[in-house]
């Protein structure tokens, strides 16, 4: 991101401490995550230390600090999904992609996250790929989804 992109973004704000979370939300909407560069820029804009900003941002699971992949895999960890093998599915995703929770694969194709309840418990276990909900998942179907090109 260039200077201009940030100054345009910051122009919407006054530059007071209370702007911190709205600024971070806007950055996450734009970039998909909060980069170190972004934290540095926000630090100078709001005159807060980078450590303070990270402390606030890391409190909220909404903010992520790694670049998202092309496909975002969210494995539901809600009660129903958990009972129907959500944990096993999530481990399978980890093995398949070779990354941990909250991380992105080196080729930037996938990132892997867990979610609370996705609100469709009757379809458990559920995996969400970008905006699509895949119901009654199994490890085999999961593998197919991950290997499918698009």
């Amino acid at each position, binding site marked *: 991101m260039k200077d201009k992109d940030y100054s345009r973004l910051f122009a919407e704000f006054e530059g007071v401490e209370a702007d911190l979370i709205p600024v971070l939300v806007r950055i996450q909407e734009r970039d998909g995550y909060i980069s170190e560069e972004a934290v540095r820029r926000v630090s*100078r804009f709001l005159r807060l230390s980078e*450590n303070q900003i990270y402390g606030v941002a890391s*409190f909220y699971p909404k903010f992520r600090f790694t670049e998202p992949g092309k496909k975002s895999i969210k494995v539901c960890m809600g009660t129903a999904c958990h009972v129907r093998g959500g944990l096993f599915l999530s481990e399978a995703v980890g093995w398949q992609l070779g990354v941990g929770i909250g991380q992105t694969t080196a080729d930037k194709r996938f990132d892997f996250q867990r979610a609370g309840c996705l609100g469709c418990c009757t379809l458990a276990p559920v995996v969400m790929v970008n905006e699509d909900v895949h119901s009654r998942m199994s490890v085999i179907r999961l593998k197919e989804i991950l290997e499918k090109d698009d």
Partner: protein
Amino acid sequence: MKKKNGAVTITMDNQTYQVAPGITILEAAQQNNIEIPTLCAHKDLTPYGGCRMCIVEVEGMRNLPTACTTPISDGMIIRTNTAQVQSVRMEILQLFLSEHTSSCLICEDKDRCREYMGTIRKVGVTTGCRYCSNDGQCELQDVVEKMEVKEIKYPIYYRNLRVEKEDPFYERNYNLCVLCGRCVRMCQEVRVAHVLAFNHRGRETVIGPAYGRTHIEAGCEFCGACVSVCPTGSLTEKARAYEGKPDREELTTCSFCGVGCQMRLLVKGDRIIGSLPADDAPVNGGQLCVKGRFCITELVSGPKRLLRPYRYFDGTEAEVTREAAIATAAEKLSDCAPDEFGMLVSPNCTNEDLYVAQKFARAVMNSHNVDTSARSYYGRGFNAYLDLMRKAAPLSAVREASVILCVGLDTRFGRSVVGVELRRAVRRGARIITINPREHNLTLIAEDWIQTIPGQKTEALHKLVELTGKGASGARKGPRGVSKELVHAAETLAKAESAVILVGSEFLQYDSSAEILESVRQLAQNTGAGVLPLPAQNNLYGSLMMGAYPELIPGGHAAASTKAYGALKKAWGLKGKTVSGGFNAASLGSGKKLKVLYLVGENCPVPAGEAADFIIYQNIYPPGERFHADLVLPAAAFTESDGTFINGEGRVQRVRRAVEPPGDALPDWQILCLIARKMGVEGFDFANVESIHREMAGLVDGFKSFKKPARKPQAYRSTVALDVPAGKLPPAGQVNQKYPFMLSASITEHSHRGFSLSDWVEGTKPLFAEERLSISPADARKARISDGDEVIVTSRGFERVWPARIRPEQAEGTLHVTLYQAQAVNPNPHPVKMRKKNV
């Protein structure tokens, strides 16, 4: 019971108490000796209510409020120790302990461990108990003891976090952390440094800087305030971790810079094991910087301290007795003519040492040839600097100013106590302007950061002077070629109700330092601002007042003045003529070679062979590889001698002897007196420091009682100008295609008695980074230089090799290097080119 004015009556544990209104239940209990266990409350921090250990029962209140956050009210009925309160506390404490390595808390060897805690390290090796340093500071241990925890019913949830040892001075073991938040609040509320924060949440919560960076990377000042308040063993001082409790404390003055912080030396047996800030001192208000907090122990008790005198003949060192050494010195000095003698004395010495040293030169050697290293440090700008000292405002001015201009000041490692004041000032609404070529720890809080380009330094300040001068109002709208920040800064300064200018070390070694400092003076005049010169030498002021310069005699009078010097000679009972040999620290080595050079707490700034035939070297550490002294005398460190210092604002403060000097070491004044007496000169029969002080007080204003120095901040008064190198500056030149980088150099301000602190304190090496070339990341990428690579820097005049240090704060196209004392880059700043070595 008679009711005090405005007091409220409360009932606590069935007793009625009268307490001041507005305090919390916890404070009321502490005032009345009722114990309420607590982990997160601390006297210097705001109430937090995080640990929940201080819960109490209050009649009419739901649940159990925390005593530390609940203010008292009239008629409140409080019970601190009921069965319900105790059982809830026990529950909470056990939850703490399920996450805390608890073996030491319920260990059956606990009592013995406490008794012999000095040996915990050895015990730890055999028993595997190495969880914490058990230095008697663990408040969790105390609480566990008071609550009589016998077992922990919850499963142990050991977080297995890595112990962080990569930073100097302290290590962090967050497995022991109870998340009381004291360190975070210390860092944010008191130091306002904002390095520590709670990261993540819930049971993942961990304390630290952003992105798991090290503290060095995160901009930590290493002030150690977090370590001091930690109630567990999470944060431990590396050097003091296994020392146990100190036997006693001694109040003294730090000798590492001109701020003059008051501190407590922790003494165990005959050793200093640590240093902590003195509470509520007017200078530092309970704060210290990395130098005062962590460097003293290592500096004064290093294994290489000089213990015995020795002589150096033909490449070998031969230890001699103290008597023989004194006799040799006396013999050599007796043979020396006044104009063949030279003495360099450290501006880190006490007033008493400085006084005796210059008296030695004048009364024993009949010579004015005495000088300090400050002359070469300030160079061309020395007189301009003294001008600023004549206008010096007290440090308290920072607390009241509405606008603060910082010129070349970086408060990360040096003078960080002043940095704390600056950040507090911002919080109360003051505006900060900083002038510095580099991004530094004040840029975040400054309203305007005027980034100067080395080589064009005077411009920025000069423009500020113009813009704030009389009749400049018309030009203020935006003269051409003046940056927006500069105009804004000028406006802010001109409109300020009360402004203060702080002068740091950044520009002091520039060739144009005299003009820069002169601009500061004019700017102060234009805006009515006070100036705080903040010298790097702790007793620069004292060295001037004591007359440790060829041009100055005690009291700050001119040596050339027949009247003043006549009076001094009369007071000393001196006859005969005193010779001035044109000697000074800057001219040493050029000109005539001396017969004897006497170094009192100084290093030889030039190769020894060029300086003198015979060098007497008196210091706390050996000269090392830099040069060979012919006679070496061990001296006492400032923790081992009594005396007084005058800090940068002119306040006289005491230094106290905390331990005895090691080996044959003696305080500087005592060695000088021994030599003088050996040479048969009268007037050196001082029994102790107090008697020197008495003699001194008769000659210098402001010294009254030695036991209780009462001199308040006072600007420097002497009007005597010093002899500084003058003449036209060699042209520095501009960057061009051949020499595309502008190199600026400064001399380390973190020095003590002729050495850089990093010579003897290992942990400061990565912090102060002397002799390393700072390069901006963009320039480094272009030149394919990575961190630590050897880089050859070439200009028309010289070629030097330094390891690279890639710093994001360094501006593109500029290079910076901090050098040891007595080194120089001429001209400074200077256009150069660089390339990586071995490619």
